[in-house]
């Protein structure tokens, strides 16, 4: 599989293949087409960063622009899902969840349970996450810990083009509501992606790199950072196992616990805010179920407990970067109990 494509093209390809395969798959969101009602071109944008560009030409009214009414159109996607469609709705930035969260966590997430197993809500919410674009406090958040907190939601945070495609196809075919978090700084990442359709099951972590000294669990954009640090440290004789959970809910506990059983040391890296975040979630898991394996304190490397600043110098400090990851790894490696 030598073909290399961009992360954002992998997402488009997943949508394209699923729309071709299953007529119940539909796409909606603000400017996912672009140009509706306007005098110029249709398919003018294909999403704010061009991810869905071209689908309109192939699928016509199965991809729809919406008014800026997130509650209504996310809710419409949820409602359509309960009626047999498989909507993929785009919430442009995850930061905007605050105007439509109810439809996600009180409606979509709860139907199956609350209705005694008699409803099914196969909706996917695609949404951009993450800092690094100088987009400031309201366009740079991760927020997936909030979705992970909600029973009934599945939450995906892909870290590579390959995973993005396989996980999105899985998300579309899944019968539960899925929050699919695309890090905007990964859109331009290139990677090998098979042309044919494939799925990656949820709840199966990817061991990105094997190692024996320290387990490093990282998500999304942090996976690349962690791998780079691990490569560098390997030269100096520190062997890190890098694990990408890929889905935060369901979460692959076993792979993380087995790794810590081997290494005895854990660093969790997450770009989200620290309090009640994914780093804490994973650390707590290991402190409860893998305590006897631990030979050192668990280090968490996260963003600080602040909003995301606009200025680039500050934003770069905000993002948990390779230097902080390396320091944490060295710290747990050097720990003597």
């Amino acid at each position, binding site marked *: 599989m030598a073909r290399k494509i961009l992360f954002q093209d992998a997402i488009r390809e997943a949508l394209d293949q699923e729309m071709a395969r299953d007529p119940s798959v*539909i796409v909606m969101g603000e400017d996912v087409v672009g140009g509706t009602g306007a005098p110029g071109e249709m398919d003018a944008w294909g999403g704010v960063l061009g991810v869905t560009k071209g689908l309109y030409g192939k699928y016509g*009214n*199965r991809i*729809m622009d*919406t*008014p800026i*009414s997130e*509650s*209504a*159109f*996310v*809710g*419409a*996607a*949820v*409602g*359509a*899902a*309960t*009626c*047999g*469609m498989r*909507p993929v709705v785009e919430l442009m930035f995850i930061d905007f969840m605050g105007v439509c969260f*109810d*439809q996600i966590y*009180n*409606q979509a997430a709860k*139907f*199956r*349970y*609350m*209705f*005694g*197993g*008699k*409803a099914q809500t196969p909706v996917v919410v695609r949404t951009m996450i993450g800092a690094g674009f100088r987009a400031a406090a309201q366009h740079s958040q991760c927020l997936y810990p909030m979705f992970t907190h909600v*029973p*009934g939601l*599945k939450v995906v945070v892909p870290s590579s083009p390959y995973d993005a495609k396989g996980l999105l196809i899985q998300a579309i075919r899944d019968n*539960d509501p899925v929050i699919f978090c695309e890090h905007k700084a990964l859109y331009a990442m290139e990677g090998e992606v098979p042309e044919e359709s494939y799925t990656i099951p949820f*709840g199966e972590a990817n061991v990105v790199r094997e190692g024996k000294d320290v387990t490093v669990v990282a998500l999304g954009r942090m996976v690349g950072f962690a791998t780079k640090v691990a490569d560098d440290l390997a030269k100096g004789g520190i062997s890190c196992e890098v694990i990408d959970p890929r889905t935060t*809910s*369901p*979460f692959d506990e076993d792979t993380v616990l087995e790794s810590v059983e081997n290494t005895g040391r854990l660093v969790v890296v997450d770009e989200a805010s620290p309090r009640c975040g994914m780093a804490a979630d994973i650390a707590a898991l290991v402190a409860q179920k893998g305590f006897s394996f631990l030979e050192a304190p668990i280090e968490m490397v996260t963003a600080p407990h602040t909003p995301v600043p606009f200025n680039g110098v500050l934003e770069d400090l905000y993002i948990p970067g390779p230097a902080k990851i390396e320091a944490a790894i060295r710290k747990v490696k050097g720990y003597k109990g």
Partner: protein
Amino acid sequence: MSVALSVEDLLEAYRTMRTIREFEDRLHVEFAKGGIPGFVHLYAGEEASATGVCMNLNDHDHIASNHRGHGHSIAKGVDVHGMMAEIFGKRTGTCRGKGGSMHIADFDRGMMGANGIVGGGPPLVCGAALAHKLRGTGGVAVAFFGDGASNQGTTFESMNLASVWKLPVVFVAENNGYAEATASKFSVACGDIATRAAAFGMPGVTVDGHDFFAVFEAMRIATERARRGDGPSLIECKLDRYYGHFEGDNQNYRGPDEVKNLRANKDCLQRFAKALTGDHGIAAESLAAIDRDVLALIEDAVAQALAAPNPEPADLLTDVYIKY
């Protein structure tokens, strides 16, 4: 009325209205006895709305309801035994005891769920309507919501979305004058909710929600428009609830004798019965027979609900995708 309903239709409508009334009156009693857990919002007094609306729908059409959902469910054909058991929290309930009064749903009947969130339903029906539209089924989706919900952002957005996408939706605003203890006179800035239709480029009409025929006719027009592909409509039914916002509410915000007068002068069932036995020449005994049937049905539903088992402890962890 521009479309003649058959005698069978009329009797069916009567049966539905009577079933709702009996169901709710009985719940009022059972709640007072302490047998029913949680929050229960009764629909008694408003039967003509749910019935007049749903008589225009078939099993493939959809409705989304609100916290005051028993009437909508019954009118849409949800099984009364299942509903009663659900409200008692039993394993034989529509939702196996996990939902309760505020979360009765039955997708086989196109009932997308009562809802504990005010304004939760309107976005959902846009989706059901979109599914109908894309599949060309000719189906319709209806959102029932109250005067209070008419001020919720989700409701406004849904009206705009339905209009913009030309969806086969009917928005049914049941204006019973109150949202909990707050009057719609205060909370709805424009007075009549139907006025809001113009803000979303759709027809809007206010009807007397105590009058089955008025509701039916408004809904007939709106449903035809929707099925034709001409888009959504808004119907405001002005009506009244007989009980408190929820069971336990002492209703001190209402006028003295307000409910007594309503029951005496505006009751939708009495009015409908009168029309049936008058204009429509139906024998009073036909109605009385239905009344007896319904009474027996509700009696049986309560008895079965009381006798039914609670969910199994293991049910706590089912119907959600994974255990942690």
